[in-house]
């Protein structure tokens, strides 16, 4: 699977860009601020319909876009098993008539940031729901900030599992969205019950039913993904022989079953008669029953996939709290490599690797390993501030492009 062509219009610092991407590796280098991360972000957006960063969607629109409503358009052509799919993500300002007084003060008077935006997805010329984008282009993204995957909050790790699963299973995205909606409703009801003690609490049961069936589907999918990710983590134990092997565990206040490595094959939630999900559902139901009194006092849902976490261990040491910064970074990289492995296992094709500025942070062994991973993928887009962070052999095999002033200059490998 690979992207053959990328076209950006008013996407961040690119007012316009047309770029053909070859099979194999492409090295993109340029100064700080040249737009390397923006380019990587646009490719990630095509794969997942979201940004790898937590920033607001409206930030993607070029501050200097002269059109009203202002917009950012990303179009990519994906070649997969001989078939070309055209993917388009349009982020457009919702109502240009809203008064400019709503906007935050901007450092540059010529800069324009819309207050609210909406997203439109077009696949092969037909408008589609955002969720339908997933699965057309599978990508794995890594950048130095990704250390937060290990060092950051539990939310960051849940998002990792959710995005991985979303790319493999569109049904998962729906389930997740519905679960979040149920949570909002259930929490509103809990608040209402706390404030109005006369109201019958039996109304909670009907939200519990929904929360349990949706929550169990999410947890079961995550537990299976964790088991498979551990199989892929085991494959890379040898990269840095001195380092302890990295393994992950699904952590929850509820005592969910934890299948050992490889026990549970990856199945999409679409499969019917799922015994793991049934087991998870019954434990989740019990947990809801046990927590009822505490939840009513706290007026918030205390159990479920939205509270769970992922322990990332090197040997027996939990890297979330006890890893050095460098160890946390390599653990995060290992997770991403395992994610790529899982995607390849499930879809039968290696995902596109989007490696933003990772080389400068790695030791020579891991650099060499990342280069070999790129060589294995159908396509890898790797960035750096100078071409020299890549080995001469790697540059020899790659297309090398220099990014300057938001346009490209093909270069001989330097």
């Amino acid at each position: 699977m690979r992207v053959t062509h990328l076209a950006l219009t008013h996407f961040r610092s690119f007012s316009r860009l047309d770029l053909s991407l070859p099979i194999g590796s492409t090295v993109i280098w340029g100064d700080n601020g040249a737009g390397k991360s923006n380019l990587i972000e646009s490719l990630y957006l095509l794969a997942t319909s979201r940004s790898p960063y937590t920033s607001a969607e409206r930030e993607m629109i070029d501050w200097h876009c002269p059109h009203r409503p202002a917009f950012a358009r990303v179009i990519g052509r994906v070649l997969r098993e001989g078939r070309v799919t055209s993917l388009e993500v349009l982020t457009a300002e919702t109502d240009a008539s809203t008064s400019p007084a709503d906007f935050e003060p901007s450092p540059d008077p010529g800069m324009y940031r819309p207050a609210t935006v909406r997203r439109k997805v077009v696949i092969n010329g037909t408008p589609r729901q955002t969720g339908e984008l997933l699965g057309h282009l599978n990508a794995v993204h890594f950048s130095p900030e990704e250390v937060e995957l290990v060092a950051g909050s539990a939310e960051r790790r849940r998002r990792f599992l959710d995005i991985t699963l979303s790319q493999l299973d569109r049904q998962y995205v729906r389930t997740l969205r519905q679960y979040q909606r149920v949570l909002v409703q259930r929490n509103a009801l809990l608040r209402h019950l706390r404030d109005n003690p006369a109201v019958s609490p039996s109304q909670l049961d009907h939200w519990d039913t929904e929360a349990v069936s949706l929550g169990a589907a999410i947890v079961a999918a995550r537990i299976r993904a964790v088991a498979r990710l551990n199989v892929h983590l085991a494959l890379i134990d040898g990269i840095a022989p001195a380092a302890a092997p990295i393994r992950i565990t699904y952590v929850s206040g509820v005592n969910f079953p934890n299948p050992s490595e490889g026990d549970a094959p990856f199945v999409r939630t679409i499969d019917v008669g799922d015994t793991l999900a049934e087991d998870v559902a019954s434990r989740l139901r019990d947990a809801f029953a046990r927590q009822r009194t505490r939840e009513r006092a706290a007026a918030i849902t205390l159990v479920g996939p939205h509270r769970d976490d992922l322990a990332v261990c090197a040997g027996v040491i939990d890297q979330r709290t006890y890893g050095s910064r460098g160890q946390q970074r390599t653990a995060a990289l290992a997770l991403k490599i395992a994610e790529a492995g899982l995607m390849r296992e499930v879809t039968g094709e290696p995902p596109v690797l989007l490696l933003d500025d990772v080389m400068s942070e790695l030791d020579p062994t891991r650099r060499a390993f990342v280069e070999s991973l790129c060589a294995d993928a159908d396509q890898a887009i790797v960035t750096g501030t100078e071409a020299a962070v890549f080995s001469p052999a790697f540059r020899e095999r790659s297309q090398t492009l220099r990014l300057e002033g938001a346009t490209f200059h093909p270069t001989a490998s330097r």
Partner: protein
Amino acid sequence: MSALMAEPIATAIEAFGRMPGIGPKTAQRLAFYLLRQPRSEAEALSRAVIELKDLIRECSTCFNLSETDPCGICANDGRDRTAVCVVEEPLDIVALEKTASFKGLYHVLHGSFSPMEGVLEDDLRIRELVQRVDAGAIEEVIVATNATVEGEATANLVRARLRHLSAVRVTRLAQGLPIGSDIEYADDYTLTRALQNRTRL
């Protein structure tokens, strides 16, 4: 805005803007459209709005909106009095009636179970439904709430409140493939539901 615009125009725009689904731009367009229409057009519109408020009431049996109480459906002797279809809104009845395939009676809940919007069990006409079914003649209750998270929770609630009436069949509308559609183009979710609700050939 009002400083630049005559007061009556601004007032009309504001009134339109408070309606569901109408943004500031559409509100402006409507106000200026009406301004260009003949007086008779404006009178007809205002009369329609007033009559809407004056002449329409809720049927005391099914809570459908109607000029009469009981409503036309409840008063119709030709309808099957053993089946009741439970819907969220009066408009849902219009959709179901267009199919001409349901001959029973209706029950309008006037909303769905949505605590975030302040709609709880007591704000829906569920107690009235239970009373109706308790009265005896009804054999089947078809729950036709929306296929949303809220519609699903509403259906759960209705089912629970009718559970003590074991002789009454409580059913839910099936979810599946739209007729005349290609499987290839169905969205995953609909397809999954269709698989789960598959029927024996």
